[in-house]
């Protein structure tokens, strides 16, 4: 699993404060911690920085590159800021996060990626928003995003399609569709374009204590559908352990066996079955209930884990 570490994100108050104070060591520690935990790339979400982009983006690149060789992922709506960052990169091939299928973004962002030999995350989102159905999302990739890359002679291996994870709390009907979108986009080109998602979006607006299990179960389902790249928190040990179990096919724990079954069922285009689960094991029961909400079989509620399984 190629993990784009998400922890340098302006939404975190600590990051915000450190950025205001230009606390280089804070960012260097966070970069090292993520790299040591298994991140393959570091996302830099600094917000738009409308006033100080010229200074902030290069400063961040210099700060992080001083301690890490990992590729950097520029996560901003401010193209001038991204370009300032790209110009400062001296190490690995960076990523731009992101373009959508909207005409204006598509006109401006891919040429920038081309010019600086950056990879590009492209969202399957047009001007009318994010479609629910898997087919419509695949069509956006097939009919808009990939043709635009071809038009610029931009390598499809550098075009990372993001079919967009939405939260189970409020956008539940999107959750199963995303799994199928991940599966199908792999057939959109030969060789398949890379696919990445923002995993933790699936548990946005979910009470804090339930976020890890939802993220982990969804991760197993998406890996079953063929996902091998995502923006996620590499410091989330539960998530990293789930990924390890799936990658090494470690059957030594009961929960691990269930995660593998879920993964394999999805890979075989089947749905996980009740008989796969030992409901007397609370951990497995919780995983099963989570599968049910992520497949939109049972309506999500904040207390869904406390309810009897359906």
């Amino acid at each position: 699993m190629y993990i784009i570490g998400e922890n340098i994100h302006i939404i975190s108050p600590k990051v915000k404060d450190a950025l205001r104070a230009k606390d280089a060591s804070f960012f260097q520690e966070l970069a090292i911690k993520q790299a040591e935990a298994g991140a393959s790339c570091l996302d830099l979400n600094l917000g738009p920085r409308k006033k100080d982009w010229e200074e902030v983006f290069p400063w961040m690149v210099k700060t992080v590159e001083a301690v890490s060789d990992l590729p950097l992922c520029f996560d901003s709506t401010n193209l001038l800021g991204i370009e300032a960052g790209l110009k400062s990169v001296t190490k690995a091939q960076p990523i731009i996060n992101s373009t959508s299928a909207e005409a204006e973004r598509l006109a401006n962002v891919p040429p920038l990626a081309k010019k600086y030999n950056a990879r590009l995350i492209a969202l399957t989102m047009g001007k009318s928003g994010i479609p629910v159905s898997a087919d419509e999302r695949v069509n956006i990739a097939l009919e808009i995003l990939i043709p635009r890359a071809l038009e610029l002679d931009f390598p499809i291996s550098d075009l990372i399609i993001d079919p967009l994870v939405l939260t189970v709390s409020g956008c539940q009907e999107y959750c199963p569709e995303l799994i199928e979108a991940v599966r199908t986009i792999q057939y959109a080109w030969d060789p398949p374009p890379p696919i990445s998602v923002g995993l933790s979006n699936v548990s946005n607006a979910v009470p804090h204590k339930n976020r890890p299990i939802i993220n982990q179960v969804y991760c197993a389902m998406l890996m079953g559908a063929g996902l091998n790249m995502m923006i996620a928190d590499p410091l989330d040990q539960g998530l990293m352990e789930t990924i390890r179990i799936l990658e090494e096919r470690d059957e030594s724990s009961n929960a691990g066996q269930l995660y593998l079954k879920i993964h394999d069922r999805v890979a075989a285009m089947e749905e996980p079955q009740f008989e796969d689960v030992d409901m007397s094991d609370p951990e497995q029961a919780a995983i099963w209930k989570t599968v049910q909400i992520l497949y939109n079989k049972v309506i999500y509620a904040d207390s869904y884990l406390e309810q009897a399984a359906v």
Partner: protein
Amino acid sequence: MPIEIPKDKWPGSVREITLGATAADGGTRTSTVTVGGEKALPYMHFEAQMPHKPVIALEIRDRLPDDWSTLLLEHWGDTAKDPAAWAKAAEATGVELLQLTLSLTDADGNPNTPENAVAVVKSVLAATGLPLLVFGTGQAEMDNVLLVAVAEATQGERLVLGICEDKNYRTIVAAAMANGHLVNGRTPMDVNLSKQLNILISDMGLPMDRILMDPTTGALGYGIEYGFSVMERLRMAALQGDSMTQQPMLVTPGFEAWKTKESKVGKDVPAEWGDWLKRAIHWETMTATALIESGADIVVLRHPESVKRIRVAIDELSAVPEMA
């Protein structure tokens, strides 16, 4: 060649809930109303018979409302100045239930009091034998004071106390639990929140057969399609066996429709909108009909003409056609 009609067989069903209690059960109502019990989607008679038709409630107030359309005030006239008289007149329209909404203040702007709320509820209970829903003002602190007093003063009546919301449900639920009443939970057009509120209320220990849910619906032209979808989704989950969505649904098309401009305003609107009263009744009726078709068990209306029309709609929808 005979055509075989595909039939769904659902594993779950909606809970049956009885509103009101007669003397035999510790109340003073002359009749009770049972709703719910559906085993199929609305009016799919060929799949499963509906054990109970949807029922109609009329909304009355504890005093002459300040914010109602003049069309409604003209219709009710002086009756609306006396809750007991209003209740009698409402009962005469043939509805099965009454919803009494308490006001935040009296006519002079002084805050409502528990003593007044209790007196009004008792006068309404004395004036009519119908089961009663008592809804608060919509302001949490005031509702908790008024509804607790009402609940205690009417122990055993199986009133429906409303409105429980996720920010304010504990006091009302506790009062219902201690005094043999039911509650109505309202959530803002969101299946997740509807289910969660049912869970929270039942976690307090109130039996599930004393909880109604109002998923909030919007009016015709004002988001009713979202309301419709939410109700449909909740009902399908109930039939699929999701225990925390199996509550009968109470909806308030009277409240929703009469706050739209089309119903509320008669002046300075385009001439092609036509007759004001006709339009307003259509608005309430169309809103209520759509909600009945999406699975509503209780519709709360405001105009007696709408009651008549919705009665016809319910009877026609509920008539089981002869299968060839």
